[in-house]
């Protein structure tokens, strides 16, 4: 404000209004760029460092040279990982888990959100809030009781749930379904009531209202929820660490840690390469669907 008013008093009186407006705007822009650059550096440094390290051999990493420079670039780390059957197993497990979890999540959340936002039944409002509250319980509190439950189940029913990659298909939806349902409730609520009434009058039943009107109209929200579910499943670390142990059942984040750290020997080059390769699929998805993602997160709020 002080800078703006300074400009204000110096500017010739005729152009007073215009001058003060543009000065204030310029001032705001300067600061915006300043903070943008600061944050960009802050958040981009780790991935850049990972990228640099991934091109180094183990010898170069442990040598006392400039860590921000690659003197002898090599693709050895990439070659080794991409030809390792184990790494590809991790990748396949991760992909299977994430894709199936996304499908399960959507199959549950979309009808749930539709019912909670449109079919007024006894307790529907409480239930909707309840769904959100479930999401607030951190997984770090849940994995021990879950582990206990699985152990009991094994003891009494003889069902072995631990150390299978597919058990994650049961666990991840507890994280993704509440949040996706919540996003979709908000999005469905922004669709005018007359639209489903018009469809009902046109001869649609509730299932057709959902599939022919709600899903197409709420597509941006749906995509946002899908991306969220995928990212959560892909990046989940604690549950697979606790519930899977055999090398052939591991997903990528846990697999990298357990197979590339041997005792106190850290294979940094391959760890960085593995992490980068693991981060690629969500990155690609975001890049393609970013516009939808942002529209989905904001549109529900502003449409009213």
């Amino acid at each position: 404000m002080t800078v703006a008013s300074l400009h204000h008093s110096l500017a010739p009186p005729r152009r007073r209004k215009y001058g003060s407006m543009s000065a204030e705007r310029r001032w705001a822009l300067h600061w915006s760029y300043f903070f943008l650059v600061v944050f960009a550096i802050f958040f981009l440094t780790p991935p850049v460092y990972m990228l640099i390290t991934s091109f180094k051999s183990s010898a170069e990493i442990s040598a006392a040279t400039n860590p921000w420079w690659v003197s002898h670039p090599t693709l050895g780390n990439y070659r080794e990982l991409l030809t390792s059957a184990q790494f590809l197993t991790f990748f396949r497990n991760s992909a299977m888990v994430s894709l199936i979890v996304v499908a399960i999540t959507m199959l549950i959340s979309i009808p749930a959100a539709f019912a909670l936002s449109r079919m007024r039944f006894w307790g529907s409002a409480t239930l909707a809030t309840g769904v959100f509250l479930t999401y607030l319980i951190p997984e770090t509190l849940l994995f021990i009781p879950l582990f206990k439950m699985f152990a009991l189940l094994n003891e009494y029913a003889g069902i072995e749930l631990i150390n299978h990659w597919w058990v994650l298909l049961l666990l991840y939806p507890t994280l993704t379904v509440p949040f996706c349902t919540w996003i979709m409730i908000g999005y469905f609520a922004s669709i005018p009531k007359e639209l489903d009434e018009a469809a009902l009058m046109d001869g649609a039943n509730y299932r057709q209202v959902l599939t022919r009107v709600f899903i197409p109209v709420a597509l941006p929200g749906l995509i946002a929820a899908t991306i969220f579910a995928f990212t959560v499943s892909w990046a989940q670390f604690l549950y697979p660490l606790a519930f899977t142990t055999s090398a052939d059942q591991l997903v990528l984040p846990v697999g990298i840690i357990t197979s590339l750290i041997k005792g106190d020997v850290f294979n940094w080059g391959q760890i960085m390469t593995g992490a980068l390769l693991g981060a690629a699929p969500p990155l690609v998805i975001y890049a393609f669907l970013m516009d939808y993602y942002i529209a989905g997160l904001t549109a529900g709020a502003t449409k009213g």
Partner: protein
Amino acid sequence: MAHVSLRKIVKRFDDTEAVRGIDLEIADKEFVVLVGPSGCGKSTTLRMIAGLEEITSGDIAVDGEVVNDVPPKDRDMAMVFQNYALYPHMTVYENMSFGLRLKRYPKTEIARRVQEAARILDITELLQRKPRQLSGGQRQRVAMGRAIVRNPKVFLFDEPLSNLDAKLRVQMRTEIKRVHQKVRTTTVYVTHDQVEAMTLADRVVVMNRGLIEQIGAPNDLYHDPATRFVAGFIGSPAMNFLQCSVEEADGELRVRLSEDIALPVPAARHARYKAHLGRSGLTFGLRPEHLTEAKPNGDRQPAYIDAMLEVTEPLGMETLVFFRIRGIDVCGRVSPEAGAREGARMRLAARMDNMHLIDDATGRVL
């Protein structure tokens, strides 16, 4: 081809009664308008006919068959909403054909019907557009088209013109009437605008506080309102209401409005009003159009009011004049040539053949 009967319809929301017992017979091909102020239960009644709102008690029958528990999709009715409710992700063609596609009509039949409706509504060139590319009036037409293609038993309109600007509203009003003349389908139309009600309806149903005040043809409501509410609701500017008493002098009845204004009652009404001689709690009602400038020797039975004009509103074809009788604003309509001026005195003639006498206790026109 459908005739709709409402019998003792009641709708209760939690602790409020939105509709408090309505009986209404709607004949086949009839255009019925439900009109009343907001909160009178007209929209709720329409939504109950549509099946979008459950009925608390009473029966709704279509062609003699009670449909209380029939879901909206099986009632074969089409509805036009206030905000059009077009499907935003579909083209106009897809919007209009949606109902037929759900019922799995053959493609050629769908195309024929959509083209036919588009021709009636003059929207043929818009068929491939999306709703967001249309103006308000065009969206309104598409919403009507979506109703027409289904060839339903009943059309339901829920304040379809309220979102349009004044000029377009008049245009679309004519359009709706024209469409109804071509596609003769039983129609129930809800509006709060009495002009819309009067211009469109075969019969108008005036509602107030969840009850029907009066059912009648537009002209009957205008000339013979049953209650003070109807008298005040129909007509613009609204009817003047003044406290009065009925007295007898020189063998004729008079309506006394103030110490120096007493207007003669036409002889034809003597018998009707005689019972109320000297009573209190009476209101005199007269429309502004029946209070005009006095013509020298032109009035058969002179009933003059000498008015001190406070406000005049020239409208071109006529001038509205406002003055007070015992502190109550009274409006008259005079010809622009009469030379009405604010602050001037003017002699106005009341056309007493068009007067109404209202019982304050019951609100009924006597």
